[in-house]
């Protein structure tokens, strides 16, 4: 006699296996890539033994240094500019009395998310070519910083806006009630409470700038190789596990920043 089986009503048959398969599919290739960065052989696919040598040779590599330096200059600049702009814009556009043009402004902020990257890339390339041709203007690496800032702004903007929307408006009323001028209320109440959102936004802006390949590849001038471009250049030569080592470094940076952003956002939710 079968006992009445207690069923979990939320359960759907087979969904668990699909979820596990998805996770495996997402992680196995990347993990293999990471493991082979420790391969003592010089082939990227044939395992011979464990070494950290490829990290050493990557870190001693002059080209890698230059690429890393460029990447950091661009990412950090773009992160700072975009986070400041996004913070100001979020304050001016969230929980405010609707001003004329607010809807249009919202669309403009989100535009970079809707345009396919390749279009942004060729448009930016055309733009910088035009101003270089017409006005003789070339900002050097500034070109890349500006191009990155554009698509970093909406990424930085999202968590800041979410945080503002979550914030209890009565806290600012309370501050005003307790004799805080609007500026003091902002400095003492709004801004400190907004910091997690700003950090989270900055982390996302940093990742998307740090990882960008498409736009950078088309816009970058000579000597402006970033880490993703460096990897792309390596792919087209005979490959050694050094490329796995560099890729792993890039992935670890992404994972670090995603986790930071994620944890900040989670703490907010609690």
């Amino acid at each position, binding site marked *: 006699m079968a006992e009445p089986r207690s069923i979990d009503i939320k359960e759907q048959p087979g969904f668990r296996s699909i979820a596990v398969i998805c996770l495996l599919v997402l992680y196995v290739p990347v993990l293999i890539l990471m493991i082979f960065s420790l391969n003592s052989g010089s082939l990227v696919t044939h395992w011979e033994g464990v070494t950290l040598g490829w990290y050493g040779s990557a870190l001693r590599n002059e080209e890698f240094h230059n690429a890393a330096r460029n990447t950091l200059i661009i990412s950090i600049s773009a992160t700072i500019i975009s986070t400041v702009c996004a913070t100001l814009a979020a304050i001016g556009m969230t929980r405010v009395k609707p001003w004329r043009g607010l809807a249009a402004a919202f669309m403009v902020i989100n535009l970079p998310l809707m345009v396919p990257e390749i279009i942004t890339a060729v448009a930016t390339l055309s733009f910088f070519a035009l101003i270089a041709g017409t006005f003789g203007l070339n900002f050097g690496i500034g070109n890349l910083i500006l191009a990155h800032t554009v698509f970093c702004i909406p990424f930085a903007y999202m968590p800041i806006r979410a945080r503002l929307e979550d914030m*209890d408006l*009565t*806290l600012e*009323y*309370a*501050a*005003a*009630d*307790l*004799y*805080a*001028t*609007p*500026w*003091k*209320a*902002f400095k*003492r*109440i709004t801004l*400190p*409470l907004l910091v997690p959102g700003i950090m989270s936004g900055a982390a996302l802006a940093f990742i998307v700038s740090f990882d960008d390949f498409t736009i950078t590849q088309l816009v970058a001038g000579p000597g402006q190789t970033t880490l993703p471009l460096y990897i792309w250049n390596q792919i087209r030569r005979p490959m050694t596990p050094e490329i796995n080592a560099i890729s792993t470094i890039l992935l670890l940076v992404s994972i670090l920043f995603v986790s930071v952003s994620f944890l900040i956002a989670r703490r907010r939710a609690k």
Partner: protein
Amino acid sequence: MGIALKKRVAAPQLPSRPAYGDNQTGTHLPPRAGSLNGVIVPEQPGKNAIEVRGVRKVFGTGENQVAALDTVSVSIRENEFFTLLGPSGCGKTTLLRLIAGFDFPSAGEIMLHGQDIAPLPPFKRPVNTVFQSYALFPHMTVAQNIGFGLEMLGKPKGEIEARVAQMLKLVKMEALKARRTSQISGGQQQRVALARALAPQPKVLLLDEPLSALDYKLRKEMQIELKRLQHETGITFIFVTHDQEEALTMSDRIAVMSAGKILQVGTPRDIYDRPAERFVADFIGETNFLAGTVVSKKPGVATVKFDSNATVAAGYPEGFDPTGEVTLVVRPEHADLVPDPAKGTIAGTLSNIVYFGTDTHYHVRLDGGENFIVRHQNSRSSPVTYETGAEVGIQFEEGAARVLKD
């Protein structure tokens, strides 16, 4: 306790330019005679702390306009525990927000000790608020929260510390002063919110349904606590609630509001015993309404005849001239049953008896078809027991019946 806000002023001060909103650049009105860090100090303490004069508040524009407050006028005396009572959406919170400065009246004036504060931003009004959600700053400790107002007023550090210590003692929170506000209970948060609003010694304390988030027992405790604080600080309290029992037990005076208007202002006893309008009588306590016709009247008392030809003497509101068909109101505890229908002012059939422990409610179906409830306090020796279906008479106590305005 009078340290801070009691500077005397020559003339009412208005800000030289209305700078709310674009004051973010840090431009700050310099302290002048009559203002302390831009917060105005009222001149001559008059009899009234707050005078609301013909205040209207309209939200929305064009066809979507809604009048949240429809030409409200009311005076609130110094050191008074004044309650705005009404159902949700009656405009009581809107009125409170206008006094606090979070909203601005579309028309009318709000006088604080004789000076119009309606065009001032909240941070220039010597008025503090206890919010329904408490609105404690989550990134600050209990003590930092309490000291915030004083700090914003630019008080010296030593003075702030002394005052915070004093406030902590007043609300019995000394032990928890270093805690984050998220680490204390709801009742404790309530106390901190009170202390924070009282610390700058406002002229008027506004309380927006502050007890609604507490459970029953804690609410009862805080009601007593609030009365004590009001007594000890001597500050005018304006209290907003939809709970009629809370209003009756705590207030010196109550304003009953409905649909953006103040219907009646008076002491709890006035409001309960002598309601002027049907809404007031109905909203506060249980009530019986009876229809009748005025047959004669002398100042303050009208004689009203029922269909049964019985008559009763009934008081009526001041400034009202009762004639013809009127509605009478009789509280259930101001009437009593008599076994002989002929001996009652009115008569009917007992349709239901509900036992409440402390008292019993007798539901009587009157001969005219209306329902009438009689409340009888239970005691060890109830002389008569009634049975459902019995024919009974109802006697009114002296002065129990009142004529309503509408």
